[in-house]
């Protein structure tokens, strides 16, 4: 009798734990519709994913104090990609999910100053200080990149490139997954690497 109730308790516990583990992250999945979100940018303008239906959207999780983000901005790599993308009609949303008081958290003004000083060219910088969008997408690192196609389907998630180092010299040697994906999409080819390992600092939730 005690054994039965013990087993029952075990199952209930297992159920609770499983349920818990599933709620940690909503699951975005490559090949499925990307979940909609509404975010406010550094100028106080609202952006939703759904408003960009018909356009390709790039999401870039960022934190200007993270050495890995610095690698790609100091070298000019990220800005170049942003310009290449937006010039081809792609919407580029940089997202900062750092909580207030944590590394990388900035005000709208600071975010604009950063964009200007770094010559960055995103469509907008979304301030996600409630972590809502970060947790919705399961963003883990800065940078962590997502691409959503014109139909609203998630087509890429992962790293910026395939050499997880902080060394700027590696950029030239690396395969830039985001550029490769955007180029493939532009000519209607399938994306070769559509899920890759994101590398960088943890998102400061």
């Amino acid at each position, binding site marked *: 009798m005690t054994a039965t109730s013990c087993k029952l308790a075990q199952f209930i516990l*297992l159920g609770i734990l499983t349920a818990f*583990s599933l709620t*940690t992250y909503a699951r975005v*999945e490559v090949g499925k519709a990307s979940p909609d979100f509404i975010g406010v940018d550094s100028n106080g303008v609202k952006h939703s994913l759904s408003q960009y239906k018909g356009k390709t959207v790039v999401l870039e999780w960022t934190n200007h104090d993270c*050495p890995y983000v610095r690698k790609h901005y100091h070298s000019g790599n990220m800005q170049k990609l942003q310009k290449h993308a937006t010039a081809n009609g792609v919407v580029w949303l940089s997202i900062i999910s750092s909580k207030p008081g944590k590394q990388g958290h900035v005000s709208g003004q600071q975010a604009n100053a950063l964009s200007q000083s770094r010559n960055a060219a995103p469509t907008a910088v979304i301030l996600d200080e409630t972590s809502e969008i970060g947790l919705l997408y399961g963003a*883990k690192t800065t940078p962590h990149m997502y691409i959503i196609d014109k139909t609203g389907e998630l087509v890429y998630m992962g790293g910026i490139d395939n050499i997880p180092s902080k060394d700027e010299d590696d950029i030239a040697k690396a395969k830039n997954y985001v550029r490769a994906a955007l180029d493939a999409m532009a000519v209607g080819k399938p994306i070769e690497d559509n899920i890759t*390992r994101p*590398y960088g600092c*943890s998102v400061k*939730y």
Partner: protein
Amino acid sequence: MMIGQSTWLVRVTIIAILLFAPLFTAATEDKPTRIKTPHLTASLVSEYKGIVPGQPFWAALHFDIIPDWHTYWQNAGDSGNPPTIDWQLPPGFQAGDIHWPYPQRLPVGPLMNYGYSHQAMLLVRIIPPDSLQPGQALELHANAEWLVCKVECIPEEGKFSLSLPVITANRQTASAWADAFNDARQRLPQPLPWPASVDVNASQLTVNINLSGVDTRQLQEVYFYPASYGIIEHAARQPYTVNNNTLTITLTRGDLRGQSLRQLDGVVLISERAADGVLKRAFTLAIPAAPTPSSTHPGLILLFALIGGLLLNIMPCVFPILSLKALQIVQSSAQAPATVRSNGIAFTLGVLISFAIIAALLLLLRASGEAIGWGFQLQSPAFVLILTWLLFAMGLMFSGLWSFGESFMGLGQQLTTRRGTAGAFFTGVLAVIVATPCTAPFMGTALGYALSQSTGTALLIFIVLGIGMALPWLLISFWPGLSNWLPKPGAWMEITKQILAFPLYATAAWLLWVLSQQVDQASLLVAFMSLVLLSFLLWCWQKLRTTTHPIYKVGLVLLLILTLAATLHQQHPPATTSNQIQGNWQAYDPVRLNELRRNGQPVLVNFTAAWCITCLVNEKVAISRATVQAQLRQKGVVYMKADWTNKDPRITNMLNQYGRSGVPLYLLYPGKGQDAVVLPNILTEGILTDALQQIATHE
């Protein structure tokens, strides 16, 4: 005078070396062995103070990390990065990959990282060349990069140099780091000593580990560290249950859940409550995932099973039965086609039902958590003995000592239809029983696959095996035209029958030898005597055939059963099984194997059994050849024998790890911590010498 002069010269040289030695060390100061950053102190260290020519040794990059900060494991988890070491070694030196002690969990908000706090010891095995001269001073250079994090992360790097003298083996002494090396090695994951499997679905991985011999009440915690990104959601809980000694861990699939998982790689850390605190043990998991039906070709496996079944017909241990069948078909070709057909069907049924029974038995055992494999029947002395009696009695019957009724299994002049059908059925049964020890190569694959499948699929594979075995005979019985090549019945059949008795005696003799490996000497004598008694009783049976009174026959049968039962009761395993080094080989011991591998020693492991003919042939024609033995000695290869004659879960586990359900299996560990090379099942001297040629000479 000459002698005096040279002594003086030597002295001056020694003094000069001693004087200048500090300068040598001073020259390396620009690349230190130790680098201090604000967050940690990194050191390049060696377990020993010197290098012995040709003797592999452990070096390590050690981090002494300030509180709250950490560095990362091979899989850093959701963020972070593992350290890298780029070696610049003197010519002829080789450095292996980093051996990572098991990490700890480092949760950061909703994320999970894997790494080390306080101390991290990244072990690397280094192999110096043989050509070094004692007295040389060598410098090992390494450029390392690492990420050290609290919440924020700092990438750091260092260029290290470690100066070590070349010395002779008898001068070797441990460095101050020796204890740290020992501690770190204890935290290296070991091969999992238990059978494990993984079930894959769209969102979860279910890992099952059969913890036989573990007191699971003492389990405190179980955690799986995946070897690489995307396999599991690192931050997700890993609930586990223990049921009948089977540990089940439920893992949430990670980013790569949309892709098929070929193999689950990682480290499972099992924490156990012990008398003096908590014992933590890490094990390497490398479980081939049960393939999803869509991604593999079950059709191909079924085809293999069919071919395997066909091949069983020409296996030496089935040969006598095969001949028996040939005679039976010759016999029945004179009869009505319908009779022939029903005989064919009866034979097929006999085969199929026997296979189904074996399959059910295997699956039942699997379900009960037994570590089993093909040929397991021959691990039971009782089964071996019964098989011996059966074959011996058949041999005696073929020799004409006795007969069973008018006929037995379809032999005899006045064969009735009914008896023929029953005979054909039992011929099928007999053929399967005798065929079981013969693991044809195709069958091994099919069976290995079958045992990892769902019950229904496994059963299907066994049935197809049976169909393969019965197919030729079924075809002949339906199209007797096919048997036109068979000679006409006649007096030659009696001669053939008598000749066929001898392969049966040979098989019985071989089985007795198998038995001799399993029981003590007294039991063996009882077994031999039981055969004499068996032949006596069969002789009596024949003499009493004309007697009308059945009481004698019943009495004889009872006596026979009594004899056999008494004999079975008197079979005892040998008092001790010797685990010592015997001749040129050592008994298999997973712990010893790991030890040897850690020491970089090359090892050849021969998984064998006394009842496995292929294994014994391989030993005879390849392993025990003088050239091969000489090469083993020359290369410093340790030769281990894993004897599976009796059930041994440690061996079964290892076989399972390599996707095998039976012997033979030959593993050659080339040393230097490299993974094993699986040698072919059929060995030749050439195959072995070529394989041995590939490994570097040890010592």
